[in-house]
Every structure is written in C-alpha cells, then in structure tokens.
C-alpha cells in the first residue's frame, strides 16, 4: 500500500504523538487508503506527508523525506518485508519485520519524539 500510494519502492515514516504535530501552512488532501487508514498529500505537488490509522488516533506518521533534514531521523527497522520488492536489497542491519509493529506486539508508544522510524516496504 505504501509503495502504490507513493509510487516509490519504499517509504520511510517517523511516528509522532499526534499532539506534537501540526500543519503550520496549508492543508493536505486526505485520502482513505483503507477502511481504517488515511493518508495526506499536497494537492499542488503531490508530496506524501502523513499517515493516520483509526486504531491509533494518538499517533501520526510523517514521511521522513518531507522533513527539511531527513538526516536527523535515521530509521530503526523495516516493516512489511513480506511485500518487499525482490530486487531491493537493503544492507543496513536493521531489524526486519514481516508485518508491522502491531502484529509483532511491540509497544510503539513512548513519550519520545519520534517514537518510531521505520523503513516501510509495502503496506
């Protein structure tokens, strides 16, 4: 889903507490990409910006590539490697989860910002 929603081989997300995030200029287009998830993107240039899931209303994912400094937020792991494109080989030694954190029972909630940063291979 991430792949098709953006058009990219992978998408990297930084998860924040919802109360710590705000749009300071403009409003994105919001698209329901599944029954429970909503993605936001710029209507003028198409940049993918946010992901929210109804089951986790206290969190928001933002695309690391839309940050002014993506270097500041190195990823911590990969999720949905079940859907990974076969020719993509990543050698960063980060944990690789076949599905997502929720399926793997990890507690993704924390007061740190960002609470998780994940190289996503599909979804």
């Amino acid at each position: 889903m991430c792949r098709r929603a953006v058009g990219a081989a992978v998408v990297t997300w930084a998860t924040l507490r919802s109360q710590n995030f705000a749009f300071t200029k403009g409003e994105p287009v919001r698209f329901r990409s599944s029954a429970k998830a909503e993605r936001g993107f710029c209507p003028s240039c198409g940049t993918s910006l946010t992901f929210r899931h109804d089951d986790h209303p206290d969190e928001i994912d933002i695309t690391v590539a839309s940050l002014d400094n993506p270097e500041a937020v190195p990823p911590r792991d990969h999720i949905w490697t079940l859907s990974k494109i076969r020719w993509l080989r990543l050698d960063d030694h980060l944990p690789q989860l076949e599905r997502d954190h929720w399926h793997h029972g990890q507690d993704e909630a924390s007061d740190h910002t960002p609470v998780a940063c994940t190289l996503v291979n599909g979804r």
Partner: protein
Amino acid sequence: MSTAPAFWGGCLCGAILYRAKAEPIRVVHCHCSLCRRSSGAPFLTWVAFPTEAFAFTRGTPVAYKATPKAERTFCATCGTHLTFRHVESPHMVDVTVGSLNDPNAIRPNDHIWTSAQVTWLHVDDSLPRHRGERGEK
C-alpha cells in the same frame, strides 16, 4: 504481431491507469532531492519507456513542474506519483516502479544523484552508482 512486452500500472485509488508496450529504456534509482521531496520517499525508482509506447488508459493526472524543464504527474485523488518527463528527453517518459502492477517484472540498472542520497540509506545491490546523472562521476 508485436512481441514487445507490456507493463500495466496506475495509482492506488484506480482513477489513473496506464500501459507501456515496449522494453524499458533504463531503470534507475534516483536519489536527488527533488525526487525525495516531491514524493515523500527516500528515493524514487524510475523505469523509462519510449514516449510513443506509453499511454494513460484511464483518467488524467495532475501535472507539477518542480523545475522549468521537468514535469511530474500524480493522482489528484490518492496522490500516487506516476510519471516524470524532461524537455531535453522528449523521446522517453519515466514511470514510477511503485505504481507498476508488478514492480518485480523490471530490474534496476543503476543509481543516479548519489551525491544527494540520505546517508542512512544502505542499498546493497552492486549496481553502478553515479554522483549526478549518468556519465557524471
């Protein structure tokens, strides 16, 4: 009968569909800052087809010019990035591999604009790497 392979794809919501009926000219991972910022992904992988072999078969995407010479398109409804065209390469259109129905059907050839690559991204594919466009070291 033509024996050219065919590739199909489109956006996430299905408002835009396309077809390319030709061998890819090239497939590149682009790490430039404009690909990154325009998509929201750390890099974009593009498959280039001859312009005449590519057609949208449903819908019309939104066009955006990040620079005067290049035009990107995406779906107005779901935001999927679809194509890139450059005025100096009118013979080909680049298509995002993430929008292909079967991205495993193509094989990337090399990396371009690695001078702008995010440093935490490690891709272990032994493909040629170019600091700028192809031919630039």
